[in-house]
């Protein structure tokens, strides 16, 4: 049994003469607790694939199975809940709310889940401890360095205790030192908490640190699974 399975996924953007096929039949399986790198050149379709696996986007054809269950027919409300409870997201750009403080930013997924009061603060604080930023809790998000911001994003992805963290170019905007620190945190979560990691990257060094690499070229898997 695999955690996520993609079956012959295609994704076409646009219609008619201007249409563009970003994915051309991608199939892959990811097991629970794995760390997987999706690697490929810019424009090869990595982000598109990740969005579809994270149920943020629908494939033009093919299907995504979660714990062997097809996901196509899940209703919007359950889908929202599923994303909120089982997925965590880290993006290349941080998407932090600049005017809010660090704690508020980390609490966002819990606010969305409707968790309130003390519990929300406690969980957010422990997520910040996991990334070593509990001291910055009350700072404005805009006052942090790039590496710190990305660690806040990891804390935010972590706070709802997800099964999978999707990270799209998590070190793309960081220099190698701060990038390494972010990577360490992610792999530590994978090892210690058993969180499945799906990392989209074009950095071969980062990809090598993962259990498995899936290479994408022009919307197709060229190396790795299948």
């Amino acid at each position, binding site marked *: 049994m695999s955690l996520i399975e993609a079956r012959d996924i295609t994704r076409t953007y646009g219609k008619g003469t201007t249409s563009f096929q970003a994915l051309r039949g991608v199939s892959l399986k990811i097991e629970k607790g794995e760390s997987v790198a999706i690697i490929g050149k810019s424009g090869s379709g990595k982000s598109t694939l990740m969005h579809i696996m994270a149920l943020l986007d629908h494939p033009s054809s093919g299907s995504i199975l979660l714990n062997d269950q097809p996901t196509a027919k899940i209703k*919007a409300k359950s889908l*929202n809940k599923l994303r909120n409870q089982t997925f965590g997201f880290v*993006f290349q750009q941080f*998407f932090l709310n600049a*005017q809010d403080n660090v704690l508020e930013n980390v609490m*966002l*997924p819990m606010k969305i889940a409707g968790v*309130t009061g003390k519990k929300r603060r406690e969980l957010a604080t422990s997520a910040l401890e996991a990334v070593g930023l509990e001291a910055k809790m009350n700072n404005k998000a805009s006052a942090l360095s790039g590496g710190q911001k990305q660690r806040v994003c990891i804390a935010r992805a972590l706070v709802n205790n997800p099964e999978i963290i999707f990270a799209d170019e998590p070190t793309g905007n960081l220099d190698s030192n701060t990038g390494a620190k972010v990577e360490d945190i992610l792999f530590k979560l994978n090892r210690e908490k058993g969180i499945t990691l799906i990392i989209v990257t074009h950095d071969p060094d980062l990809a090598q640190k993962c259990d498995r690499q899936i290479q994408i070229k022009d919307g197709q898997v060229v190396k790795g699974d299948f």
Partner: protein
Amino acid sequence: MKFRDILNSAGSNLWHNKGRTLLTIIAVLIGSLTISITLGINTGVNDYLHKQIGNVGNTEQMIISPQYSAGDGTGPQKYSTKKSSQNADGMMTKKDVEKIKRTKGIKNVKAMKDDNVEYAQGKSKTKYVINAQTTLGIKYDLFAGKQVATSGNKSEILLTKEMAKAFGYKKVRKILGKKINLVVISPVTKKKSTITAKVVGIRNESMVNSGQSVYSHGLSEKIVTANQDGLPKALKDRYTEVVATPVGKSDAAVAKAEKALSKKGYDAQTLKEAVKQLFQTFNAATGVLIIFGAIALIAASFGVINTLYMSVRDRTREIGLMKALGLGRGKVFSIFSCEAILIGLIGSLLGLISAMGLGQLLNKAATSSFLKGIDGFVLVQFNWSSSLLIVGIICLITFLAGTLPARRAAKLDPITALRYE
């Protein structure tokens, strides 16, 4: 997402864009202020008129006059039994009174004769012209004393406060029980007769029959007799006014009696209707002001739409992220609707508070100028129900204006919002 967090998100976003929030709120405030102050004046005036009707009592009393009089100014009119030149001066004859008496649906028909008084004189000896009417049998709004006799031959009079002062009584109550003289000069013989009248009451200054003194039945008869001195008998039976009471008190019964009178060529109006007409004229005037307020509100709602579109644009990434993290469409819609309603709520409340402040100033200005001496008239008044209604309606308007941008936000695709290149 819990309501508190939605409210928080909306509130903090308004706060982070203080400038444009303030401008939009001011637009709403202007509309709210206009409508609130207008409704305040409306409430004040209607409240006063209601009080007046309540004080008067017997407001079904009808005043009947001929339909045709020269005062109509509608050019030559064809003669008919209903329209005779006899009535051109607005006076009625014995025949008219008989006809009116035979009309169904009215009782206690009383015909009033000419009761001109040349001048009135009191303790101060200064001669004053007097504007008066014979008692209609209604309860006049009194400051002190009692009503005049509606039958018998007692010579009693109600004066206004101003008249009492003019007659030399600084403390107006002191005039109660005192006598004043009314001097009548017959238009025919020029004979001068002096009639004494006892002041039994002082009228409150009022907008209904304002400034008029009131004669008792007996006093009126004496004045009429003095007026008719030397008049040929045939001319004595001319009446200025006929009053009657409808048998039924319901609006329908009154209307029926009026229709019957109209068929015979007479106009009839009850006091209640006269006051109602005053209401209607006034309400029409305030209606226009309310339309101005409404226009201001429409302009303000465009402001709200604009502000929220800006807000949606500014927060595109944030909305995208929240949707990616599992926030449903409905909740996104609520956040922006909340923003719109908050603008409406703050704007309308500030408008209401400003209206209350302005109302106090207006009341002060009014009582010391054009409402001077009119008792029990508070020009601008607010009541809870209409104030809440205004706030509610404005919140509803801003909510509706906010639905357009809120829908755009709700429909945002998280991937498009989060894409970076």
